[in-house]
């Protein structure tokens, strides 16, 4: 389990772990709980150019279909094939094995701290 305070967050309920020039991206535990049982993920393939703020994928649960927004500009270097095969990983371990994308980013925008994100979701 990743230390939540090391992560940065977006208002779209995603977390970002920055290591050098690569950002690992996932959805927060709050988002996973709100979505309910996740059944399907549509993630961009490695090599896809993504633009911060645009919709790059879909997260489908039994209750709704959520959109995955790119938190950064950059190029996808890896998508998590394990969650495509077993979407329930996003529910069981959203901050760990349930990560979604690794992106080689060009520039890092302003992101939220844990405290700011918790304030956003009212916790």
């Amino acid at each position, binding site marked *: 389990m990743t230390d939540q305070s090391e992560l940065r967050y977006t208002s779209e309920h995603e977390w970002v772990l920055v290591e050098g020039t690569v950002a690992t991206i996932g959805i927060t535990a709050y988002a996973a709980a709100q979505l309910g*049982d996740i*059944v*399907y993920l*549509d993630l961009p393939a490695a090599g896809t150019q993504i633009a911060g703020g645009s919709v790059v994928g879909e997260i*489908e*649960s*039994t*209750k*709704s*279909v959520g959109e995955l927004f790119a938190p950064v500009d950059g190029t996808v270097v890896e998508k998590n094939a394990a969650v495509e095969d077993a*979407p*329930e990983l996003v529910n069981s371990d959203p901050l760990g094995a349930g990560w979604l994308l690794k992106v080689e980013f060009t520039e890092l925008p302003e992101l939220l701290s844990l405290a700011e994100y918790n304030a956003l979701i009212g916790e």
Partner: protein
Amino acid sequence: MTQLPFSSRHIGTDAAAQSHMLEAVGYSSVAELMAAAVPRAIQFDRSLADSLVPPAATEREAVAELRALAAQNRVSTSYLGLGYYDTITPAVIKRNVLENPSWYTAYTPYQPEISQGRLEALINFQTMVADLTGLATANASMLDESTAAVEGMLLARRASKSTSRRFIVDADAFPQTKALLRSRAEAVGIEIVEMVLDAVDHPAHPAADAFGVFIQYPGASGRVWNPADVIEIVHQAGGIAVVGADLLALALITSPGELGADVAIGTTQRFGVPMGFGGPHAGYMSVRAGLERQLPGRLVGVSVDAAGHPAYRLSLQAREQHIRREKATSNICTAQVLLAVMAGMYAVYHGPDGLRAIASEVNRAARSLAARLAAAGYEIVHGDYFDTLQVRVPGRARGLAEHAHSQGILLRVDDDDTIGIAVDETTGDAELLQLAIVFDAVTAPPIATTDARAASEANLERARRASAAAEEITEVAPSLPEHLVRTSDFLTHPVFNTHRSETSMMRYLKRLADYDYALDRGMIPLGSCTMKLNAASEMEAVTWREFAGIHPFAPKSDVGGYLELIGQLERWLADVTGYDSVSLQPNAGSQGELAGLLAIRGYHRSRGDVDRTVCLIPSSAHGTNAASAVLAGMKVVVVACDELGNVDLDDLRAKIDQHAAGLAALMITYPSTHGVYEHEVTEICRLVHEAGGQVYVDGANLNALLGFARFGDFGGDVSHLNLHKTFCIPHGGGGPGVGPVAAKAHLAPFLPGHMFAQDAGHLLIDGSRVEHAGGPISAAPYGSPSILPISWAYVRMMGLEGLADATASAVLAANYIAARLAPHFPVLYTGENGLVAHECILDLRAITAASGVSVDDVAKRLVDYGFHAPTMSFPVPGTLMVEPTESEDLAEIDRFVEAMIRIKQEIDSVAAGEWPADDNPLRNAPHTAQSVIEGEWAHPYDRERAVYPVHLLVRGKYWPPVRRIDQAYGDRNLVCACPPPEAFE
């Protein structure tokens, strides 16, 4: 003995029951209750003298009038084809499905545990379509062939990698399909390019710059050809190939899937569903692997229940319009379940060999006709065909068709020089000889007579003589190209290879019906669905040959009875809703919505207001509203609702200001989706009109208003109605539906028209005539006419007074339930006097928070008590919406109230810690017989409580066939075809 008025059969509560209910609600009369519930500003003073609705007829009188209307139709033998063919409905299917309330009074299978029968029937349908089209996954079902083609085009745009906005359409597609594609494409910015498609191999083909192509296979002309090369070109450009295929032909020719198609669409009408002057029939769509999540409409899949047994359910619900709103794959909700069940059962009854034999017979009939006509010197245009011939008759096509019609035969005029003839499974040797006589291709001497009927009989006699005399055409050349002869198997699953005897078929249909909970078992209190009585006398006319046996493009002189019935129903509906004109063309509420919004669009554009494209939709609206607005080329802007669930007037003013120049319309549901009569509705409509917008009133909740207020009077410009809610067309387990669109006079010219309409003119309420000249919204000019006698009979037998009584009784029943249950469950929204409209929302959120018992638990526990659950989590998550309708009697309503009160006691026991949160009668519901008999009983409550929580159930228990179904498992492991029998062992 005097017949009781029909209204007293339709309305479940009598005067004594109503006075008891009024006491509980706190009013002294129904009139007083309605005066308090319906805002005074919108109450309409109904004056019977002015109404176009005649005084109520008895059941016997109404059926006699329908007989008289039916007698004004003339059933000619149709060879018109174009997706509609005469067919033989197996009597075992007609009696046990079409005429059986266990099938036709069920609702959409949202509660899968009590819907396993029709879910199995639908998965048979999906398997049949997927097998025949050679594609991975089929849905269940589309509204008709032409709208399925539109959905195919929209799917292609979503799934295509091409950035082109061009869609190629086969010049040999059915004309009504081309018209629909053109009209629907225009609204969403797709460019249609129609062209003659042929085997081509050069890369400069226009298909190389398109996001998709639509190919008719076989073509409207009857031509059978191999489209694989065109499909390949489209694929190379990243596009999607949609093939409109005839399922019966596919028993003999290579499937679209094997030719590379991504999507197949079409109709299943000729699988035992009568033509009915256009419908209802089930359209179909199937897709290759990888496109499942792009499928519009409803998809049945296999999951597992709590005991690990396989169980059916609707899959990928999260993608439907009620959740995804403007981002949905489609606006379709109601499908054509009853008709899909019939078509699927036709395949179950005949099996693969039977279908092959039927298809071969049809093809043999076409070939023998071709040989006879060729021998008489006629040129047959295409050498490769399945069931449809084009015959060259230079300059004589119209004359010949008129002559044929005088003989009771309908031939298709393709142009002045060409006749089309489509044969079907009812075309026997006698019919072929009649055709030969019409073409003067037999040698028997004519029999002179002037009377048309006698002429037709005389010609049969002549045909018989000719038959004896005519040269035997023994060797008929094949007409299917050798390289397109189907070699792959289909319908190999045991279900299609078991029920060959009628006894076996009857028992299979009975077994599936017994799995399900329909109105013939008890109340279905689904909020916003209006599950009222579908009276037997209303259903009488549906299967009469004079209504069922007519082709949708039959000449006007054949359909006088239909046109009169349609004209009357249009005007009655306009009259009771305060509008001027009605179109019955839309096949579901979603299509009525779209037609209404397209009328608004057409109106604005006709005035040069091309930039009016913003559609305001309250946040409480049904998701379909937003999905329809997008398909009408509009931009959705959401208006906030206040804490009472009403439109927030300040936000509405702000949004109107912000979008004043671009405002096209506001869509509002009345009474609101929260089941409340909004008091500000008149002001809301005024604000929109003032800004130049049009008001669309969603008529889904009309059952709370009929006879007391009219949409048109308080500001509506256009509305759709749901005949399958307010006007008694049965839900059929999820369709058919009819969603007429009603409009004020200024919008009437923009209501859906149709190139084959027998009469484009429609009588307005004031007696003047208007032409509905908008684009078509359905494949057939009058949508699904064969079920219109149901609504006609309902209005005819109720009269205006009866309709108002029904409304008041429905509102009383809802308020009675709200009053009885309020001490146990908070009622979420009420109007000014603390009253609800025709439904009430029970708020479980606090109860769930305190006990852990969810809406799901309560819904499934109701099954143990012998009820269908109310609507879950719509319009508010964590709530149940209850709509009893006027048809339930007090005993049944009280039985429901008692069940809910006992369930609340069970919830209290969980909250008090008597039962663990994860092991109690609610969490484990529903309980099957197997679950209480098998193995050791290890739960903290006894078996009697599990399955007989009320003693009354001991003799009349409905047993669910499966336990609670795992929703996530089914969506993660998508299987949408019949599972192997071993799965059930």
